[in-house]
């Protein structure tokens, strides 16, 4: 199975990269952008064929290493 993990700074934690990209979009004339957030995507290939096992494993990976939950939130999509 494959897991796609998205890691973003938490709501309320200022995302300086997103803010810089937002400014750049504004100055390029892209009107109507209300917010830009930049995160990272981590794609993990897993040996297991069991969705629940995969989800549990990836969750543990996120909590241990892939995200710093002091400042970041993450989402997991398994396929």
């Amino acid at each position: 199975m494959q897991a796609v993990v998205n890691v973003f700074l938490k709501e309320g934690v200022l995302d300086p990269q997103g803010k810089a990209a937002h400014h750049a979009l504004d100055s390029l004339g892209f009107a109507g952008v209300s917010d830009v957030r930049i995160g990272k995507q981590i794609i993990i290939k897993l040996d297991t064929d069991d969705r629940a096992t995969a989800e549990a494993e990836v969750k543990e990976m996120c909590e241990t290493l892939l995200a710093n939950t002091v400042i970041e939130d993450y989402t997991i999509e398994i396929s």
Partner: protein
Amino acid sequence: MKVAVLRFPGTNCEFDTQYAFEKLGHTTALVWHENETLPTDIDLVVVPGGFSYGDYLRSGSIARFSPVMKAVSAYANDGGKVLGICNGFQILTEAGLLPGALKRNNNLHFISKQQNLCVINNDNAFLNRCKKGEVLNIPIAHADGNYYIDEEGFKELEKNGQILLRYSDEKGEPVVVNGSVTSIAGVCNIAKNVFGLMPHPERALEAILGSEDGLRMLKGFES
């Protein structure tokens, strides 16, 4: 005093750190990150600056799982003194030995310059040679030094006197350097035996090179 200086792949301040403590008359030992134990009879562990594991994923996030870090956690939990400088500070927050986290600087720049710092609390093993409110001049050099802690955590830091240093002007008034919560440049844990700061005291050892304020900070560990 015997000081263990850790070394990860990508660490680059280990020799400066050794030099600083040796200049003060102490012995030092470099400890490779794959070691599962620390040297015996040490008085201090320093996690020096650099770019451990190329800052991949997040600064300090991979180094914190190096074998030596288990020994460092055990040493710290046993009351041993640990100092993290710059990348070392990032590693210690990632390891959960210090509260909060270090984010990308608000202006996205790698900031490298001499910086004034105001001493906020000195009733600890690190800053006991400095006066409260005193202004020190120490170099900073980082891209991820933007200290973040949530409101509740911040209140705890304040209440327990865990805020060590703030970026300031020459009068000691806080200034915004990288976006840190209330301009925090360094903190310690609640037990006051684990210390972390973004500035580099080991780069402020000679007045002729800009400042010798770093010596006084490092001397704090002697008593």
